[in-house]
C-alpha cells in the first residue's frame, strides 16, 4: 500500500512534466497542423541556455531561467516565421504536412548539432534544483520538496496558459486562428503573427518543462528523446483537447511509475534510453 501511494505520488510529478511537454506539442499542432518532432530538442536547447547563463555568464537562477524561456520562444517564433511560413506558401495540398514535419526534423538536428558545439555539452551536467530542504513525510509517502516545486510550477504554468487562452484578447485571437484560419483572417486577425506567437508560447512551455526536469535527470544533447512519452500523453488525451492532454500526461506518469515499481523484469538498454531515469 505504501509502495502504491509512493508510486502514485511520483507518477503525478512525472506526469505533470509530460503534460507540459504534451501541451507544447498540442499548441503547435492546433495552430499550425504540424507534428513538432523538434519539441524535445527545443526543451534540450533551452536547458543548455540556462546552464550557460548560470555557469559562463554567472547570472542568478531566475535570470537564467528567463533567458532559457526567452530563447525557446525566439527559436519557436523564428522557425515558424522563417521556415514554416515559406513552406506553407510554396507546397500545395496534403504534402504540406510531410514537408513541415521534415522541417521540424531538420530543426531537431540543427539544435542537437549546435548544442554539441558547446564545450559544456561534452560532459554530463545537471541543472541545480531551486526547491531544497528536507523531504516532507506524509504517512508512508515521502515527498521531495523538489517534486512539490515541480508540481506547483507545472500547475501554475498550466493555469496561466488556460487563463491566457480564455481571457486575453491575444489568446482568443490565437484560438480563433487555430479553429478556422480563413474566418479569423476575414475578421481581421493577423494569422501569420498569431501562428508565430503560438509557436513562441509552445516552445516557452517546453522550456519550462525542461527547467523542471533537468535537475532530476542527466543533461545530454540527446535528452530530447523524452518527447516520445509526451507524444504518447498527447495521443491519450486526444491531441487537440487541452484538459484531455493534461489527464493523458498524468495517467502516463502514474502508469509508468506503477509498472516500474511493481515489475521485476530487467530493463534493456533500449528502455533505459527512453524512460527509466525516473525510478
Amino acid at each position, binding site marked *: 500500500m505504501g509502495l502504491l501511494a509512493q508510486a502514485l505520488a511520483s507518477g503525478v510529478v512525472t506526469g505533470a512534466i509530460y503534460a507540459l511537454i504534451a501541451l507544447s506539442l498540442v499548441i503547435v499542432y492546433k495552430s499550425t497542423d504540424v507534428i513538432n518532432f523538434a519539441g524535445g530538442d527545443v526543451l534540450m536547447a533551452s536547458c543548455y541556455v540556462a546552464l550557460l547563463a548560470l555557469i559562463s555568464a554567472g547570472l542568478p537562477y531566475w535570470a537564467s531561467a528567463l533567458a532559457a524561456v526567452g530563447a525557446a520562444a525566439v527559436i519557436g517564433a523564428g522557425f515558424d516565421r522563417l521556415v514554416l511560413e515559406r513552406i506553407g506558401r*510554396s507546397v500545395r*495540398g496534403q*504534402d504540406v504536412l510531410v514537408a513541415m514535419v521534415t522541417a521540424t*526534423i531538420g530543426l531537431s538536428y*540543427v539544435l542537437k548539432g549546435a548544442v*554539441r*558545439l558547446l564545450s559544456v555539452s561534452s560532459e554530463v551536467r545537471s541543472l541545480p534544483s531551486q526547491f531544497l530542504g528536507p523531504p516532507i513525510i506524509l504517512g508512508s509517502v515521502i515527498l521531495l520538496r523538489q517534486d512539490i516545486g515541480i508540481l506547483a510550477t507545472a500547475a501554475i504554468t498550466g493555469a496561466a496558459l488556460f487563463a491566457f487562452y480564455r481571457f486575453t484578447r491575444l489568446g482568443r485571437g490565437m484560438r480563433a486562428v487555430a479553429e478556422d484560419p480563413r474566418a479569423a483572417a476575414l475578421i481581421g486577425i493577423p494569422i501569420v503573427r498569431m501562428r508565430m506567437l503560438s509557436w513562441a508560447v509552445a516552445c516557452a512551455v517546453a522550456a519550462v518543462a525542461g527547467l523542471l526536469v533537468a535537475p532530476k535527470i542527466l543533461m545530454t544533447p540527446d535528452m530530447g528523446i523524452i518527447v516520445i512519452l509526451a*507524444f504518447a500523453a498527447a495521443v491519450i488525451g486526444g491531441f487537440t483537447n487541452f484538459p484531455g492532454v493534461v489527464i493523458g500526461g498524468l495517467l502516463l506518469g502514474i502508469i509508468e511509475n506503477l509498472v516500474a515499481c511493481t515489475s521485476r523484469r530487467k530493463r534493456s538498454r533500449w528502455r533505459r534510453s527512453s524512460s527509466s531515469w525516473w525510478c
Partner: protein
Amino acid sequence: MRRTALAVVAAAVVAVPLLSTDYGVYLANTLLVSGVLAIGLDILLGLAGQFAFAHIAFFGIGVYATGLLTNRFSLTFPLPLLVGATLATGVALLIAIPALRLRQVYLALTTYAFAAVAQWVFHSWDAVTSGANGLRMSPTVLFRWHLIDDRDAYPLLVVIGLVMVGARALLENSRLGLAMKAVHESEPVALASGIDARRTKIVAFGISGCYAGIAGGMLPLFTSYIHPDTLGLETLVGILTMVVVGGLGSTWGVLAGVVVMGLLPELLRDLQVLRELVYGAVLMLAVMFMPRGIAGLAHRSAS
C-alpha cells in the same frame, strides 16, 4: 537529355565495382537498399498521400525473416527473401486495416507507435531474434555459390533494384496507380468517381510494406549482422528525408534524393561535430527552397 541521364546512371552502376574501393561498393550496396526502401515509402507517401511511419518495422521483418531462414534452414537465395517480403506484406495489410481509419497526424502517430512496438519485439524476443545482442546472419547461398563480400552481392542487388524500379514505373500509370493519385489529390472526389478509396489505401500500404520487406531481404546479402537499434526512428527519418528532398511522387527524384542524402553524411564525415548541424540545415533549406524536391528542380530547369 533523358537518354544521357540514363547513360550516365548506367555507366556509374557498371563503374562502381570496377573502379571503387571495397568501402565504395559497400556504400553502393547500402544505397541500393535505401533506394528500394525509399521507393516503397514514396508509394505510400508520395503516390497515395498517406503519412505513415510503420515502414521501418516492415523492413525489420524482412531482415529478420530472411536472416533467420538462411541461418536455421540454410535455404538458398530467393526463397528467404520472398518469404520475408510476403510476411512483411501480410503484416502491412493487417496494420493497414485498423490504421487507415485514421488520418493525418493520428495515422502518423499510430503507425509510429507500431514501429516502436516492432522494435521492442526485435529487441526483446531473445529466443528468436537473439534480442539486444543482435543477430549474426550466415552468408547467402545462391545455387552453389556463397556470397561472402560486398562485390559478390552487388550485381544481385542491382538486379533486384532494377526490378523494383521497373515495378514502380509500371504502377505509375496503371489503374491502381492512378487511383492512388486520385485518393492523394482528394478523397471525396476519388470516392465520387467510383474509386474504392479505402481499398486503394490498404493496397498501397501492402505494396509499400512489400518493398520494405524486399529491402530487408537485400540487407543480409552483404551484411552479416543486424542490431535492433538500427531499426528505429532514426533510420526511418533518414529514408523520409531522402524521399522528401528527392521529391514526393517522382521515382527519379526519390532515387536522386537517395544518392544525395545517402552520400551527404559521407561528405560531412570530416566535419565531425558540425555534421548534425549541416545535415539539419540542408534538410530545412531543402524543404524551404525546393518544394517539389530535386525532381521539381530538374523539371523547372528542363522547361
